Structure formats: C-alpha cells, structure tokens
C-alpha cells in the first residue's frame, strides 16, 4: 500500500465521520491528482486545461456527494479512480466522443501525478446554484457559501434543521445534474 493511499484513506474515514478539516484536506489533495489525470487523458482528445478543470469540479462534487458509498474495507484509490473514470467517460459521451476511445487504465494512474496549477473552468457553479429550487438555493447559499451553521440557516429561512440538511444534500445532487447538462459541447 502506498503512502498516499494510507494518508488519503485516513482523511476519507475522518471525513465520513464528519471531520470537516480532514475532508477539506482530502478534496484539496484529490483535486491535484484529478487535475493531472484529466489533463493527461483529455490531451489525447484535443481538449485542454479548461475542460480538465470542468471535470475536476464535477469529480470533486461526485466524490463529496457519494462519499457514503466508500466501504472502509476496501482501498480508497480504486474507488476514486472508478468515479474519476466514470465522469471522464460520461463527459466524452456527452461531447459525442465514443466510449470505445477511452483506453483502459490502472487505478494507480489516478494518484500517479499531481498538478497545482488550477485554471478557469467553463461554467460557474454560483450561477448554476441560482437555477436550483428556492429551498436548495437558500440552504446551499447560507451553509456552504456564506458559512452559516445549519441552525443559523434554519432560523433565517424559518425552516427546520433537517429540512436544511436535506435541501443541501438534494441541492448538491441537482447541481451535479445541472453541470452535466451545462458541459455538453
């Protein structure tokens, strides 16, 4: 087992338990690996850094939303790789490049390199959040963007705390679908 697998898995387990700092560290490190992975993969399809950054954000959102699906009995690297590759194939299919063109790669490819040079991406998540149903917009805006606690957000919008939590969860899923529709060309 590599050091990065051990470290990232520890961060993931802490994040699953609700440790925000560990989750942040995990997403930061994964975003560098994902960026290097997507830049390398997309180069062979004539796509550049902007599309790679689009995919980095899509994959990070998916990893965040689906983090309950990581089974601690398994290695983390293959789980991350499976999501990254799934998003890559989905992206290429949406942009009408056939799936058969994606060469098979190893799970370790995803952790092979990292890339700190973040570029602009093509869509703006803030603008897409404005297209969500009102409660989801409020909940994500207050808690995830402004940084209010769930209790404060609930008070501000006269909603229950569970309603805020559900709205955040559903809103992020809806956001992922909006991004998929946005990135079609």
């Amino acid at each position: 087992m590599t050091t990065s697998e051990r470290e990232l898995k520890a961060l993931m387990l802490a994040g699953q338990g609700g440790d925000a700092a560990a989750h942040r560290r995990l997403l930061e490190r994964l975003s560098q690996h994902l960026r290097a992975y997507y830049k390398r993969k997309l180069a062979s399809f004539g796509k550049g850094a902007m599309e790679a950054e689009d995919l980095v954000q899509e994959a990070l959102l998916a990893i965040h939303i689906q983090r309950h699906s990581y089974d601690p009995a398994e290695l983390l690297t293959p789980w991350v790789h499976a999501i990254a590759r799934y998003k890559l194939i989905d992206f290429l299919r949406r942009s009408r490049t056939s799936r058969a063109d994606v060469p098979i790669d190893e799970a370790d490819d995803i952790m092979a390199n990292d890339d700190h040079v973040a570029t602009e991406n093509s869509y703006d998540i803030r603008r897409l959040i404005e297209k969500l149903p009102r409660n989801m917009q409020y909940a994500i805006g207050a808690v995830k963007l402004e940084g209010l606690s769930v209790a404060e957000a609930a008070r501000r919008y006269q909603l229950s705390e569970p309603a805020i939590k559900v709205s955040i969860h559903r809103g992020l899923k809806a956001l992922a679908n909006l991004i998929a529709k946005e990135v079609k060309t």
Partner: protein
Amino acid sequence: MKTDELVTALSRHLEPVDRGLIRRTVGFALAVAIVGALCVAALWLGVRTDFVTAHAAAFLIAKLAFAVTVIGVASVYLMRLSRPGGELGMPSFWAFVPFAAIILLAAASLGSAPSSHWNRMILGDEWLECLLSIPVIAIVPFAVLVWAVRKAAPTNLVRTGAFTGLVAGGTSALAYALHCTDDSLPFIAAWYGGTILLCTIAGAVLAPRLLRW
C-alpha cells in the same frame, strides 16, 4: 467558482455519513422485490394446490432451491457492484454455478429416460406460460432494485445492470415456482434458466440509461 472555493464550500459544516445506508437500501429493495414478485404471481396466476403429494413437493423444493441460490449468489455480487469501483477484481464465476448445476441435473435426468420422453420433459405443459410469466413478473423487482442500486453510484453500468436483471429474474422465478406444475428438471433448466438469462440480458441492455447518476 474556482476549484479551491468549491473545496472550501463542500467542506463547510460537514455532516457525518451513514456507511450502512447502501447495504440497508439494497437489502430493503431485495426484500420488497421478493414480496412484490410473490404477490404478483399469487394474485395473477394463483398458487398450485397439489404440493401435498411427495413428487410435487420435491419439485417445488427443487425450483425454490434453484431460485434462492441464484438470488443469493447474484445479490452478493450486486451489493459489491453497486458501489463505485465494486467491479474490480471480481470474477463473476460463482454466478454461473447454479445454472451449470441445473443443466447437469437436467442432462442426467434426460440420460436416464428414454428419448421418446425428452420432448415432453423439456416442453412440459406450460412452457409458453413460463417463458412469458417470469420476465413479466420480473418487472416490479427490477424497478425496485434499479432504484436502490442507483443510489450507490455504480461505475460499471452494463455489468451492474446484468446483475440487477439476474437478481430480478431469480426473484421472479421464485414466485413463479409457486404456481408452476411442470415437474421435470429439463423444464427447470430450459425455461427457468432461460428466462432468468433473458432478464439478465435485458438488465445489461437497459442499465446504461436507467442506472446513470
């Protein structure tokens, strides 16, 4: 929004996750699928009433055992496949074992009977009813299982779909067995095995559209 802003936003006020959610959701869907299939079969086709005789009871048990084995093995695979990366390092070998076993038993049964009986042993009275009923009864279990599996974010959609179809087909065969009065091993191999295979193929074909997340 830049990627580092997204990371910051996602990690604010993080909620702990429920690691057992997927196991419970898929398990619940499997239970609903079995109960649903039994209800549809019982209400639509009715239950055979002759299983008091030893011969009928033995075949009822054989059919149920075949269906339960198919469901048991396939749902272990499905539980794994439904998660991202679950398809890795997992040969599907064991899923074929119940089918190989019933085919061997059917062959042995045919071998010990005169060839003039073969036609009757394979076709039974109601091969057409079996051929149509098992895929139709499988629709409800398939829908329930798709709903559950989708929540777990599978990444190999074709394979996950095939196993969803396999479990749904097994569930349907289990329910149909309560009605079916064709008591021969070649009949079970051909029509139970064949229709479950049909459900598996249908699952693999439909899955890329149904299971996308």
